[in-house]
């Protein structure tokens, strides 16, 4: 009998993030008629695009059982450099190109220390977090910068009726999903995350894979930084603060394991990122006390983590070898 109940619960737990997502939408839709309107849903997508892209990069790192704490700082550096360049009269395309190079450079620094010098990712990226924030604060002289309308267009323009941030989000997501599921590189990331030593023995160039995921994470953080900057319109000294945790939360909420080898960008991580944004959006519509947002978000994250651990326990139980085939009841 217990076995039967286990089977019934499993599909629900397997799609916990999906169900949670639907539940959150349903609750807000029920509480406010404004929630389920096209403009509001589009708004949610636009607002979550920056975090979602950073979280997609983070997912690559988490899949290898690593972590990248420097993404928020990279966003700040990217925004600071972009702000200075655009205000200094540099063309937009050049600023964007430099930003992406900044992201890749930070990723390369992380990769060098982690792969070459074999220092733990947590420590390395913690150090680059401080390095990035320190550099950007010095660079901006800790003053806020307001950007000209030309840059803000990235956040507001539409193409074929689709907001540009959503479009960029969709492109990054599609590329990331295809890379992870359909390329040798993507499958090898999963192998490295499951067992680095085993992957090395199997003949995979693990150093190359590990370096690549930090480059990808740095690049995604820079792209996320551009989108966040275009939406906010200004670089403040707190730009990008705690984004690394928002990204990790989104990935974890979407079922990505922090121990490596398990997780997907779609629907997983993306759903997690949009879910967090939906909660915030819903609470704003309901005029909830802003101080409640983190409490409610944390509650949902706890719920997601709880269902995930329940699911793992059930899966382990189901995977347990059956020695006897008991007669069916």
């Amino acid at each position: 009998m217990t076995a039967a109940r286990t089977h019934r619960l499993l599909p629900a737990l397997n799609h916990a993030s999906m169900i949670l997502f639907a539940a959150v939408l349903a609750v807000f839709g029920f509480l406010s008629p404004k929630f389920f309107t096209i403009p509001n849903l589009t708004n949610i997508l636009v607002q979550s695009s920056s975090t979602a892209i950073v979280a997609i990069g983070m997912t690559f790192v988490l899949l290898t059982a690593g972590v990248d704490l420097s993404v928020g700082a990279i966003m700040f550096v990217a925004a600071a450099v972009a702000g200075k360049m655009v205000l200094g009269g540099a063309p937009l395309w050049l600023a964007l190109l430099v930003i992406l190079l900044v992201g890749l450079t930070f990723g390369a620094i992380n990769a060098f220390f982690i792969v070459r010098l074999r220092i733990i990712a947590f420590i390395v990226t913690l150090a680059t977090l401080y390095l990035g924030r320190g550099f950007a604060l010095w660079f901006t002289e800790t003053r806020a910068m307001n950007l000209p309308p030309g840059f803000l267009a990235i956040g507001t323009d539409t193409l074929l009726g689709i907001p540009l941030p959503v479009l960029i989000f969709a492109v990054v997501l599609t590329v990331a999903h295809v890379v992870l599921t359909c390329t040798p590189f993507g499958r090898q990331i999963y192998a490295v995350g499951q067992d680095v030593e085993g992957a090395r023995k199997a003949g995979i160039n693990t150093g190359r894979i590990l370096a690549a995921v930090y480059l990808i994470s740095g690049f995604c953080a820079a792209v996320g930084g551009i989108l966040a900057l275009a939406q906010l319109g200004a670089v403040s000294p707190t730009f990008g603060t705690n984004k690394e945790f928002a990204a990790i939360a989104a990935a974890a909420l979407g079922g990505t394991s922090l121990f490596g080898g398990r997780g997907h960008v779609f629907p997983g991580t993306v759903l997690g990122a949009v879910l967090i944004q939906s909660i915030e959006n819903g609470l704003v519509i309901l005029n909830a006390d802003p101080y409640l947002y983190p409490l409610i978000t944390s509650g949902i994250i706890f719920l997601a983590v709880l269902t995930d651990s329940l699911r793992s326990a059930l899966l382990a139980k189901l995977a347990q070898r059956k020695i006897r085939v008991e007669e069916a009841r």
Partner: protein
Amino acid sequence: MIEFRTISKSFSGVRVLRDANFAVPSGHTLGLVGENGAGKSTLMNILGGNLPPDAGQMLLNGQLYAPRNPHDAARHGIAFIHQELNLFANLSIAENIFLTAFPRRGRLPFIGRAEMRKKTVALLEQVSLKLSPDTLIERLSAGERQLVEIAKALSIDARLIILDEPTTSLSAREAEILFALMGRLRARGLSMIFISHTLGDVRRLCDDIVVLRDGEVVGAAPCAEFTPERMITLMVGRSLNQLYPARKQRKDAQHSGVSAERRHRECAPNTALSRDAATEQNLIILEARHLTQPGIIRDVSFSLARGEVLGVSGLMGAGRSELARILFGLDPCEGGEVFLDGVSLTRTTPRRRIERGLAFLTENRRAEGLCLEAAIADNLALVSLRQQARPPLGLLDFAALRRAVGSIREAVRLTPTARDGQAVKTLSGGNQQKVVLAKWLLAKPRALILDEPTRGIDVGARFEIYQLIHELADGGAGVLVISSEIEELIGICDRILVMSHGEIRDELKRETFDRERILRAALHDPMKP
């Protein structure tokens, strides 16, 4: 096909290989035997491209062969199947096989899934595995995973396959499937190097045998020139008169009255089952009554007497380890009861059971039995630590602890060269197992459950473990030994239970021990009455 010429290798000044010379002719299967630490794995790691030799060279079909990494070795047609299989549980069979050589979709960087599936199906057919290529490895049994590894070797067109103790985690039936496959591969002209501690298998499967001892080749000849006895003699460098120690007290058990089993056997063998209730209560230490857990075990009852060594035989997956875990309180059990000294243990935690005198050596020494990175002394003290705490503050009495550690080290004859502070992972398998055993002995258990106590342990250390088991029983403890090796149980036990599909199928007393009868009971299939 491959020839080793004066290969030498040292690790931090310790010579592990010394001028190893031998060759594997094309199409031959070579058996590589030797005690643990004899250098087999190191030699194979050199061949497989994991390690460079310090001196000497290898010739592959007459050409100089010096692989830079495993990938390079694979390109030369050499596949190394490690003892701990190198498969990724989170990926599918097909992805595991083609992990480093995915078929592409034309020039695009995408995986050609259709082609990969087709190739995998063909490979799985060659190893007689009827599974979808998309099955995740985590769904496969140990035997199936082994076959996937071989399919992987075939996928790179390997001409030489190294099998490092492939049968350790296989059931007898799975091993037979593997051996049949090895026969087919041999017929196809593939060369193989087969490393195993099961000398009977080596003799059965191999054309030539090479014996390594302390990094040197001490014997290399066609299989026919070897007997298991000669191999053992070469491996250990001294002649072991018998593989199993004689039990000192067995013959005078009648006088000391140590074991009810033994007395009954000697006084009235025919009425052994109708035991005197009073005697039973005095002598039975551990008793299981009608233990049942759906899907795992059914109606398991037995009793273990003081001074008795009781064996549990059966195929891999017969429920032996699961029974051990239930006895120790690690896994749930829906029906039945366990008694220690006549007191029910139902619903008590493993910790309470340890306090009551139960000990459990798990089958997985490295993962569950030891803290590998920790010092020998710390590992030894682990179970009995609370006994060394002194009131009122519960601080540890380190002097007493050191004395206890020192005396138990001597008792289990742990290698004297190892320091107390040395990490356990630096010890050989045999010495590691002695540490686990010693750790439990410090807690002075009254009943021990030993799950595969000699797995992966060389001949010399095995003998010492057997001696320790006998000493424990002679000291009045009851010992339950789970083993996949029937010979081992016959060698050391007073009585053997045979499990199959979660049930006890047979019970044999010492005078009726019979290899065939045990195997028959173990192979019993409840689906075919």
